[in-house]
């Protein structure tokens, strides 16, 4: 078993929370894990990505080879496309549809969506709206993770467990919000895959 995942977004969007949840879930399932993340300069509103690898065998490289990723999870639509060279032919692209515009030449969203739709296996989800409906736009990243969860080789309970652990300190309300976000994302994918 092996899942190689690229997680992408813009510096400040908090992609770490997604890798932290998957990471915890993987470790809890007794798997090996390597997760390489970006710190420093590009966190100031630049493009950021994280390589997350989980496997039942020892993992060597911290970086995923190009063409080998099983999935791209992106919290921003244009950023999801930046890492296509890493995605394998059968890999899934799971992305938020809400653009984060901090540059003057941000392309028209229709053009971006057309490229996303041209990827064989794709899930484009309006995670912000779904998260707002549940209670807080802050849970958007967990909605996206929920949307990615059916395509990862980890039992659903492991994700739930990770959320309970990671958000536990912040109280039941936050835990329940994020569990609902996970569920909503997952339902969306099951309907739209």
């Amino acid at each position: 078993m092996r899942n190689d995942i690229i997680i992408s977004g813009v510096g400040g969007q908090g992609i770490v929370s997604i890798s932290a949840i998957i990471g915890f879930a993987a470790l809890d399932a007794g798997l090996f894990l390597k997760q390489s993340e970006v710190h420093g300069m590009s966190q100031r509103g630049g493009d950021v990505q994280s390589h997350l690898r989980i496997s039942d065998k020892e993992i060597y490289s911290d970086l995923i080879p190009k063409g080998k990723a099983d999935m791209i999870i992106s919290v921003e639509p244009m950023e999801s496309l930046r890492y296509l060279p890493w995605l394998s032919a059968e890999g899934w692209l799971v992305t938020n549809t809400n653009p984060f515009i901090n540059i003057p030449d941000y392309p028209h969203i229709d053009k971006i969506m057309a490229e996303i739709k041209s990827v064989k296996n794709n899930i484009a989800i309006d995670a912000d709206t779904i998260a707002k409906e549940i209670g807080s736009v802050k849970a958007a990243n967990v909605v996206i993770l929920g949307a990615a969860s059916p395509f990862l080789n980890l039992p659903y309970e492991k994700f739930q467990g990770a959320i309970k652990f990671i958000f536990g300190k912040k109280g039941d309300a936050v835990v329940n919000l994020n569990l609902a976000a996970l569920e909503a994302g997952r339902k969306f994918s099951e309907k739209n895959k």
Partner: protein
Amino acid sequence: MRKSLLLGDEAIAQGGIDAGLSGIYAYPGTPSTEIMEFVQHSKQAKELNIQCTWSANEKTAVEAALGMSFTGKRAMACMKHVGLNVAADPFINSAFTGVNGGCIVVSADDPSMHSSQNEQDSRFYGKFSLIPFLEPANQQEAYDMAFYGFDLSEKYKLPVLMRITTRMAHSRAGVQQRDIKKQNNLKLPEDLVQFVLLPAIARKKYKKLLGVQPLLEKESEESPFNFYKDGSDKKLGIITCGIAYNYLMENIQNTNLNYPVLKIGQYPLPKKMIEKIYNECEEILVIEEGMPFVEEMLKGYLAKGKTIKGRLDGTLPRDGELTPNLVAVALGLTDTKGKDVPQVVVPRPPSFCDGCSHSDTYIALNEALRGYDKYAVFSDIGCYTLGALPPYNAINSCVDMGASITMAKGAADGGLHPSVATIGDSTFSHSGITGLLDACNSRSQVTIFILDNLTTAMTGGQDTPGFGKIEEICKGVGVELEHIRVIKPLKNQHETNVKIIKEEIEYKGVSVIIPRRECIQTLNKKNKEKFKNK
């Protein structure tokens, strides 16, 4: 025992704590910052009373670590690669004095310059200083090397360098912890002049350091971090250093390639192991992260021996970070790749945050400078370096920490006016103060902006060493009180600020303008904390 999930940086920190560390000294710098931060946030470190406040710069950090070691205790100094340039003087000389308690200097290199001004390879410093140095291939090794490094340091009474690179520093993996060691007791050096590098003593020290080299080489031959994996196909022998081993294994694990492999994690190079692979194989491929350090040594200036492949002959790129794909190509395997990046994707460079004080300062400065036909703004390193990008295009230099003030002084001495410097508050405490003293002593006509956002923003918001003391420092080194002007970088203060800047530019001496407003990131963080505690 369950493994803990740690960044390479955190593994080094946890390793240090568990191995009996008494003090860690550092100045922030990507990708090394999280080593110190981990210790600062560790409950265990707090209970053990481990000294862990930021130093003013890397030089003071290494010197403080040496002082801690003088007392017989274990100390670490951590920095990014260019920080070792700043600390080079005490670092090189500490190889001569030797140490008392174990002392590890960690230097984090940044190949491909994700957040740096150059991609120098710290291993050259290791060779230059003639001390043993370590290069972990994974997070577990990084943890173990803290234990091993302290023991090695105390065995030979020498500092040990640990060299890591960005991917090692900022990648997480499971790490198995060991039993905790107690801190050393206070025990002063037996030799009263051990640390006195008077020429006559230094000459003896140097001979001693040279004399110990064969022993260090022997340590490398027997090191758990160096091993030889035999292979049946002797057409090629592969030497890997540090994390390059991972990229090799990633590529060959499911193939029938069966070349002998020498994995190196401890230097000086294990000569016998190198000789073995060189003699047994027809050609050698060297895979190393950073500069062709080992490759150049093996090849020699005239390259008269066997074919050595690597970064020098184009088998691997001469510069930049390694990737699994680059190593695949070097091994003659197929390069894999998904779809190309679609044309609609445009670059997204880093930029000022919304509401950043630096952007208001630059807008005011640009306006104040309009009308002068020749001028320059010498800048420095930090978030404010982003002022080089459009729409600001506000600065003309970024060389090394502290260089803004000194370059502005030199340019003013050369007849340039206005000669302006912009330097952050943390960078000012790091290495701007001495330059300001120079400028005051020569009464150079410079306008120096100390951009005080009350934090070290670029590296994630660490405390600044000069916090709350900037005006006092300026006054102390000789800036006249009337020419220390504090302004508030806000849109609604724009007119006032432009006027003040213009006045100070025309002053025929050293003037300091301090735009002071808290970094928007740290402010948000604080507000969140407040909210949480309610």
